[in-house]
């Protein structure tokens, strides 16, 4: 088995002649800026000034601060994933029942909004819902509702979750849109003819068909939120304990730089991302998950 593979590849090499040369610069770039930095993080996470040790990982596990930042990130990402997925799925289902002409146009609009994230998005929300934001002032004047007086604060967890949901919705929409077509019209009609009502159909057939895609989309939304940095950074000036912000602070911060610790956190985060992407890939292979 192995041997035939080698000879097969050998054959390909011989057939192509010197045409492997154009690959070299690409491989060099990939190596230098993708593979080596990644490897370096792993190396750095188990290499402290005292030599090779798992000290950094132990430190993460024993520090309330780092554990809390991990927990915060996980909770925000899971919460945002669930809410974003809910809105996206309902939206995709609603879009499915609209006319064909509208569908494509609306979808491209959604696709466009999926580009709005990071600093500009955070700023747009500050203009709207900041302390002197348009909505904040308007609501106070017209309805007598003092948002900030009621405990709302854009520059806190509430704000982060709110803005994260915003950039998750278009993504969820785009991911679930092809998935809702797995619930084919004729399947719905077959159930209808056999006497199933709409809610019965969705409970017994529609949702079960959608479930794998929803799980797959959730993993991607989760991964996207977990890795996000700019939005939170712009909203809270790095004064929060999300793991992405913590990692960056540990490397660039002037106060307690600890690259090894940052690397350990990065490895933990990358593992979480890899697991969720792996789950999605698995689901996709079984015909359920969602593509990117």
């Amino acid at each position, binding site marked *: 088995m192995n041997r035939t593979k080698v000879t097969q590849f050998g054959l390909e090499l011989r057939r192509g002649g010197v045409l492997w040369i154009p690959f070299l610069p690409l491989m060099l770039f990939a190596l230098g800026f993708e593979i080596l930095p990644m490897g370096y993080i792993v190396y750095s996470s188990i290499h402290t000034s005292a030599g090779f040790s798992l000290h950094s990982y132990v430190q993460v596990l024993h520090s309330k601060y780092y554990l809390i930042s991990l927990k915060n990130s996980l909770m925000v990402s899971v919460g945002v994933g669930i809410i974003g997925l809910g809105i996206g799925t309902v939206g995709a289902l609603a879009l499915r029942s609209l006319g064909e002409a509208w569908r494509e146009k609306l979808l491209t609009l959604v696709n466009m909004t999926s580009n709005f994230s990071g600093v500009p998005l955070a700023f747009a929300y500050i203009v709207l819902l900041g302390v002197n934001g348009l909505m904040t002032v308007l609501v106070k004047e017209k309805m007598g509702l003092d948002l900030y007086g009621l405990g709302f604060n854009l520059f806190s967890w509430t704000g982060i979750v709110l803005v994260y949901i915003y950039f998750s919705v278009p993504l969820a929409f785009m991911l679930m849109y092809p998935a809702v077509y797995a619930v*084919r019209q*004729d*399947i719905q*009609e*077959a159930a*209808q*003819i*056999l006497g199933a009502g709409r809610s019965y159909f969705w409970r017994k*057939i529609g949702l079960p*068909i959608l479930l794998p895609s929803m799980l797959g989309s959730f993993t991607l939304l989760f991964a996207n939120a977990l890795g996000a940095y700019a939005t939170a950074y712009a909203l809270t000036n790095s004064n929060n304990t999300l793991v992405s912000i913590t990692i960056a602070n540990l490397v660039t911060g002037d106060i307690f730089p600890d690259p090894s610790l940052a690397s350990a956190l990065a490895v933990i985060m990358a593992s979480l991302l890899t697991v969720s992407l792996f789950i999605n890939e698995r689901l996709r292979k079984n015909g359920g998950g969602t593509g990117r």
Partner: protein
Amino acid sequence: MSYVQINNVEKSYQGRQVLKKIHLSVAKGEFVTLLGPSGCGKTTLLRIIAGLERSDAGSVRVNGKEILAGQHKKGQNIGMVFQSYALFPNMTAYENIAFGLKLKKISPENIRQQVGEIMDVLSISGKENNYPHQMSGGQQQRVALARALVTKPDLLLLDEPLSAVDAKVRESARSLIRDIQRRMGITTIFVTHDQLEAMVMSDRIVVMNSGEIMQHGTPEQIYHKPENRFVANFIGTYNFVPGDWVGLSAYEGEVCIRPEHIQMLKKDQLEQFGDSGSVRLQGLLAHYYILGNTVRAEVVVGDRKILVDRLNGFQGSEFETNEEVGLVIDKDACTMLAPGRGEGN
């Protein structure tokens, strides 16, 4: 007394009329096929009968009850097999078949017994716990059929259920469906664009084109006595010749003759054959090729090309290309077509 009565059914989509005043009645236990090219309205008609689509005008009655769109919960008992089977992908074969029974609030023991019986009849016993994607196309087809039959429907509707399986499976599925339909005595309406399938399976064929019924009758009637050029063109192969060629000079329309009803002879034998009931023509054999169990000759007579089919005998052919040949046509083999109807395909 007709069991299914379709009266004056009309339907338009965005200003385009897809069904024009359709009248049709089907007797109890009858197997009726709606045959026509794609876009002829046959599937729309089937969907209206199924109550999946609302007609613009007219009515459909099954066993005396009027069919209204979207009223399936209220005791309409119609079974349908979809072109793509539409099996529920999240349910096993057993759960798929039992779905309709469960909704009818039948006791679990009875469901088990009825599902077991129908799976036995369709020889898919043992596949109870398989999911649709774990079964072959033929097996999925049987599950879909079982799901439609298990509720003992008043009427069975089949929407091209044989088009997605390969030729071998299709052939056995044809006789299986026909067999079960006869045994259960279930009234069936079948939609297809395959004329051979229609011939093999039906008690009666309804040929449709652009929203109209072109002709209906038994397979024999449809094959041997087409009423218009569309039906003649659609079913098998026909030669079309002017009426005066076959001694019907008074007849204005065209006459059609099946290629297998024309006899081809060596030119010098022509005098010895035929009687007063037959017509003799001469032509040039332009082409001669094997179709399988028949051999087809293309004979040029005047400005027309006449096709002649003969059995492909073991001794081979005595004719050669570019040979002058004689043709003998029995006048009884000629069918007169109503002029003007269904011309432009």
